[in-house]
């Protein structure tokens, strides 16, 4: 899932709001006219308008939050354990390392009355793989060689044994083949029809999408009858919407606005650790001082991890022992993690002969400047000079992903593969030759290559333990912390957010 991009303006507005919050009095619980909570309808503020309502196209957080309520997914994850559980598919078996067979729930209907069959599921994958469709999810399903459906049986073959296939199938929403082919992709995007717990009612492009409960859905009847998703890009405005009772829940809260909400009567903060990890990556090829593993080790000891979590993230983050979160399949539980030891870091810099050297830190406005500056200060404390080069996200990507590796020495980033798997981090970030990697280690490459075509979970975990062991010794990157998803909500809302940032309205309840 791609991050919803923060604008510098939003930060500015948030600061202004925080300054003003001191002189505003929160309204008392009952007096506010609750636009959203009349009966059982819910109003949700998202950071932006969904880029697409067709689940085959975009999969940014805001699009995901809306359209996943309209469609059923082939597989789901248990919100508590993150284990893969039945969705539309009730059972599945692996015939050989490259062939998977799924049995679909019978009696499921799309909201236009047509029955949902395996042919619809196969079609949902095929269209994502069709280059002409230009789906941004194409890369997630690139392991798939073919998908065929007959009756209730869906068969997927992969080009090579793919342990992450099931993971990506939890993101697959099933669309009605007949309707998509009849109305065309463009019309379907404007008026999507699915089999999920809610159906599309209306939209004002750029402003809001209204969904209503699908009373013929196969699952347990949701309590909320109607939901209005509103696009409110300014964080401060989302806070104001919650305080004035215009919204029942708001997504993409910052730790600062969360702290502000905790003091308001009638409101609460909901949060859950996600698979998104904050990390530092080094240029070990053309990074200057950071080509030296000693310097990288020194930097890993220079950072005050605890302070980042408690002071900057206000506790809405958890420590990690590698560039991965404990939620991921293959997380190396045995690794000792990083230590904060300024004295040792200083002596390592002395030993490496790097004292006083300047390293360039590349970043973009997408990433919290406070964290970037805190890290800069930490590294300067051990005797290096850090010059921050801040460019917009597009330029940043162009620079960092360039095969010439001349983007600087160190960068701060956030990573989420939306696959909850060790492979989704190790491979794209550190494997030789991938676009994000400025690191090359044949031993590490061999382990990751082997793991990504191994199905047996125990063997994979072992391989990743070794691979991540190498990363923690060689330090081409440092995991800083696991990021929480933060929501502001009315105290009347009962809901537990999960690691996938699933915004399933069917799981929400509003007390009257």
């Amino acid at each position, binding site marked *: 899932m*791609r991050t919803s*991009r923060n*604008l510098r*303006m*939003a930060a*500015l*507005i948030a600061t*202004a*709001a925080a300054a*003003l919050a001191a002189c505003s*009095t*929160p*309204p008392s619980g009952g*007096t506010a*006219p609750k636009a959203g909570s009349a009966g059982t309808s819910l109003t949700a*503020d998202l950071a932006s*308008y969904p*880029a*697409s309502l067709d689940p085959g*196209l*975009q999969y940014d957080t805001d699009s995901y939050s809306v359209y996943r309520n309209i469609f059923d997914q082939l597989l789901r994850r248990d919100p508590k354990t993150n284990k893969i559980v039945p969705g539309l598919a009730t059972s599945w078996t692996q015939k050989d390392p490259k062939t998977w067979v799924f049995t679909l729930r019978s009696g499921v209907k799309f909201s236009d009355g047509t029955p949902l069959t395996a042919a619809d599921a196969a079609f949902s994958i095929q269209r994502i793989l069709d280059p*002409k469709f*230009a789906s*941004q*999810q*194409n*890369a*997630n399903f*690139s392991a798939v060689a073919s998908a065929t459906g007959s009756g209730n049986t869906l068969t997927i073959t992969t080009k090579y044994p793919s342990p992450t296939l099931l993971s990506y199938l939890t993101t697959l929403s099933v669309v009605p083949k007949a309707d998509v082919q009849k109305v065309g992709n*463009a019309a379907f*995007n*404007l008026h999507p029809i699915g089999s999920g717990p809610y159906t599309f009612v209306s939209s*004002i492009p*750029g*402003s*809001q999408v209204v969904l209503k409960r699908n009373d013929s859905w196969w699952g347990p009847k949701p309590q909320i009858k109607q939901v209005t998703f*509103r*696009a*409110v890009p*300014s964080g*401060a*405005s989302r806070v*104001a*919407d919650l*305080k*004035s009772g*215009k919204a029942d829940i708001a997504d993409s809260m910052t730790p600062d606005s969360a702290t502000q909400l905790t003091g308001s009567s009638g409101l609460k903060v909901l949060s859950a650790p996600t698979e998104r990890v904050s990390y530092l990556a080094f240029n070990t090829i053309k990074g200057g001082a950071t080509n030296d593993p000693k310097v990288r080790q020194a930097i890993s000891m220079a950072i005050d991890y605890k302070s980042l979590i408690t002071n900057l993230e206000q506790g809405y983050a958890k420590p990690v022992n590698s560039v991965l979160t404990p939620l991921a399949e293959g997380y190396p539980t045995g690794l000792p993690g990083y230590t904060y030891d300024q004295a040792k870091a200083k002596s390592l810099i002395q030993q490496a002969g790097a004292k006083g050297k300047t390293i360039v830190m590349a970043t973009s406005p997408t990433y919290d400047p406070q964290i970037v500056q805190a890290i800069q200060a930490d590294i300067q404390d051990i005797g290096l000079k850090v010059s921050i080069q801040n460019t917009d*996200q*597009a*330029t940043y*990507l*162009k620079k960092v*992903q360039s095969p010439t590796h001349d983007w600087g020495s160190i960068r701060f980033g956030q*990573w*989420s*593969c*939306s696959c909850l798997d060790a492979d989704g981090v190790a491979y*794209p970030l550190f494997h030789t030759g*991938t*676009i994000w990697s400025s690191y090359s280690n044949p031993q590490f490459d061999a382990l990751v290559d082997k793991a990504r075509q191994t199905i047996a979970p125990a063997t994979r975990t072992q391989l990743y333990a070794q691979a991540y062991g190498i990363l923690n010794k060689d330090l081409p990157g440092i995991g800083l912390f696991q990021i929480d998803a933060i929501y502001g909500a009315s105290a009347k809302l009962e809901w537990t957010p999960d690691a996938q940032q699933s915004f399933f309205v069917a799981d929400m309840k509003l007390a009257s």
Partner: protein
Amino acid sequence: MRAGAAAAVCRYLGIRLGQALIALFGVTTAVFFALRLSGDPAQLLAPQGASQADIAALRHQLGLDAPVWRQYLDYLGNLLHGDLGYSYVQHEPALTLITQRIPYTVNLALAALVLSAVLGVGAGMVMALNRGRWPERVLTPLVLVGQAMPAFWTGILLILVFSVTFNLLPSTGFNGFDSLILPAVTLASLSAATIARMTRGAVLEQLDRDYIRTARSKGAGTARLVTRHLARNISIPILTVLALEVANLLGGSVVTELIFAWPGIGQLTVQSVDGRDFPLIQAIVLLAAVVYIAVNFVTDIAYAVLDPRVTTTGKAAGP
């Protein structure tokens, strides 16, 4: 004599139209090439774990792997057929996306324009006619505050007071007339201040003139003085400022629309620039250029209508 004047008007219009077309061509070309220096949309669109091959495939689908001159010729060709392109991110024609949003921005900008014209001209007149007395002393700091407060601050302040504290008006979104008030006031505050200062200056300049003294000596009251004598003479400078403010209002709406979650062109602009949605950015810039040029054009004509002393050969007397 009349035929000669008509020919002069036609020639004038022809020249202005030609100039407008050249300006539009310049804008589209500059934007097209500047965008292609600013980063790769395929990198932004691809999922985080995408490989080099995935990104190359995406670039090919978007037609971004063709030589830039080729892309440019294709773009111009399509433009001449009225095809503004297809949004990379939203998978809809750019023209559709823009036309959906225009009514909201026009609504907001018009409301703000009317508000700022009424408040600005009114305050300016009162200040000039009461020079040195209490109305001026009360209004001057207000105008200064209006001039100094940026929209993102005014907007949040208004939301906190009128939505959060007193619960009188909706904080965000578009939902009828109620929801127009706060964004319109926010957007108008800056322009109103500018217009007020301008009006005050223009009126003061006129007050020393002979015709005003004559009118006064004939016993004209303040109301008659303003409506019959002053209004026409200060209309030209005010019109000039208003025309400039239209552009400012359209520009200022970016910030205001973000704060109030107003589904207009401003929000669309930010989204499209953020995602390097080339076709959409190009279309929006083209639209903005057309509006700007059209407003200038209409203003020039309005000069001639309001003040016969202004000739159509473009020697307008505006400051």
